[in-house]
């Protein structure tokens, strides 16, 4: 279980036991399996990739094929205690609407994303004049699924505009936590726990 991606590890540790959770973009179900094992959470998943769904279903997890842009509408209000959107926000067509959907489906949500204002990204753009390709953003601009790059400051601003409360935030540089104050340029990853304002 140590193989869990660092942002997923933080979510798995932070989520309370026994809650109802929806993992959007759950992939092969690594986080769902961890939450089931450690927190007795019978999580549900939404995933677009058939091979990943098969892998998750082979673990006995409940995963529905679907697209975060369209299919969140199928879930009723307050269907879950927590919605989880990890490393997917930047791939959605309208991240602002997706965030609203998360907090319609559940009163609380975990949202994690790669911070586009990390110093490596800034330097790369500054020095080369080209769209950055880094460890976390390894794909060229024309084929990256990340169509809405977002920074920690952008996301904080979006939450402010929408009147959404930040319950907690974690910032990671590699696998190491970094401080709130330095997050804008030092965080590679950000994980927010948000709730209805």
């Amino acid at each position: 279980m140590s193989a869990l991606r660092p942002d997923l590890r933080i979510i798995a540790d932070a989520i309370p036991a026994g809650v109802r959770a929806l993992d959007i973009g759950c992939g092969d179900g690594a986080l769902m399996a961890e939450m089931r094992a450690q927190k007795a959470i019978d999580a549900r998943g939404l995933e677009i990739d058939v091979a990943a769904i098969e892998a998750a279903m082979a673990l006995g997890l409940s995963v529905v094929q679907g697209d975060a842009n369209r299919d969140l509408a199928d879930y009723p209000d307050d269907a879950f205690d927590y919605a989880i959107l990890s490393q997917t926000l930047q791939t959605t067509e309208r991240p602002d609407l997706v965030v609203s959907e998360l907090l319609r489906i559940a009163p609380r949500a975990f949202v994690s994303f790669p911070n586009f204002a990390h110093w490596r990204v800034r330097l790369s753009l500054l020095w080369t004049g080209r769209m950055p390709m880094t460890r976390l953003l390894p794909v060229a601009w024309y084929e990256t699924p990340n169509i809405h790059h977002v920074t920690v400051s952008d996301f904080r601003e979006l939450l402010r505009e929408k009147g959404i409360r930040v319950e907690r935030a974690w910032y990671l540089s590699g696998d190491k936590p970094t401080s709130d104050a330095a997050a804008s340029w030092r965080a590679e990853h950000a994980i927010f726990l948000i709730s209805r304002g």
Partner: protein
Amino acid sequence: MASLLHQIQHQSVTISAPLALDSGQVLPSVTIAYQSYGALDADKSNAVLICHALTGDQYVASDHPATGKPGWWARMVGPGKPVDTDRFFVICANVLGSCMGTSGPATPGAATGAPLGMQFPVITIADMVRAQSMLLDQLGIERLHAVIGGSMGGMQTLAWAAAYPERLRSAVVIASAARHSAQNIAFHEVGRQAIMADPDWQDGQYYGSERAPTKGLAVARMAAHITYLSEEGLTEKFGRRLQARDIKSFGFDADFQVESYLRHQGLAFTDRFDANAYLYITRAMDYFDLAEPHDGRLAGAFAGAKDVRFTLVSFDTDWLYPTAESRRIVQALHSVGAAASFVELSAPFGHDSFLLDVPALDRIMAGALGAGW
């Protein structure tokens, strides 16, 4: 042909309890023919019920007694297969209204001893499921590990979850729908009219005569068979190729390979199926709408089923029961908070994909039944 069909002996039980039907009529007793595979655990917890499709039967994994062909889902059910008979006690019962040993229009009436024909009451998918639950009572099985079905089998599986949610842990619904669409009903009506327009049908009382409506039944099968395939599949298999000739005949022989194929499919079907049973079962499917008793709210049907684990699979080339129908079910399951998995698989064979070689389906089936976890 039909008379030969009715001479086959099937393993069956006759339950002398009345079966109250949706129509308001009552069957005073019911005979259910079934096959089982594997062994029932001491605590009777490993039973899996497979529900067959319109023209399927209980011979899911054993040779068909009329045709000698391997069971219709032998690739899925057996020792070491996704539905592993080394692990599960698998039951498959011929549905109510059918012609492989279960009570249906060919069953003799108590009063006359003659086949009932059209005197047999119209039945529904829910009635089929009631009959299956009576069989399980008879076998002493209270709770099923899973109910599994494709196409009409999927409808029964959904009806199981709606009627007896406490009797199943999981439900696997493949290439199916929670209701019959206008298009589905329309195709069935073509088939029924073909049968009833055949003079040999004789208002359904053909059993004792030398004649049976094989022509009408064959045409019904031909029309239905087209709906089980994809256009892409038909084109790939036959295109516009001619059958055993180089030039068109300028007549009405089976010039095209696709015509020859359909004629063969139609004719072969009459060796193993009864025309009246075809009328009754297509009718049951047309009447199927799981949401109807709940003011059109499908979620209402699953109100008691939130502890059942559902797995739904559709196929991208299936235009008979398209993916949207499975999604509609998933949406209803979301509203009651049931654990649901759903995937649309890519396969070239249209609706028939659920019976054919689609390795992803095997893996999903094994996962749904809890292999490896």
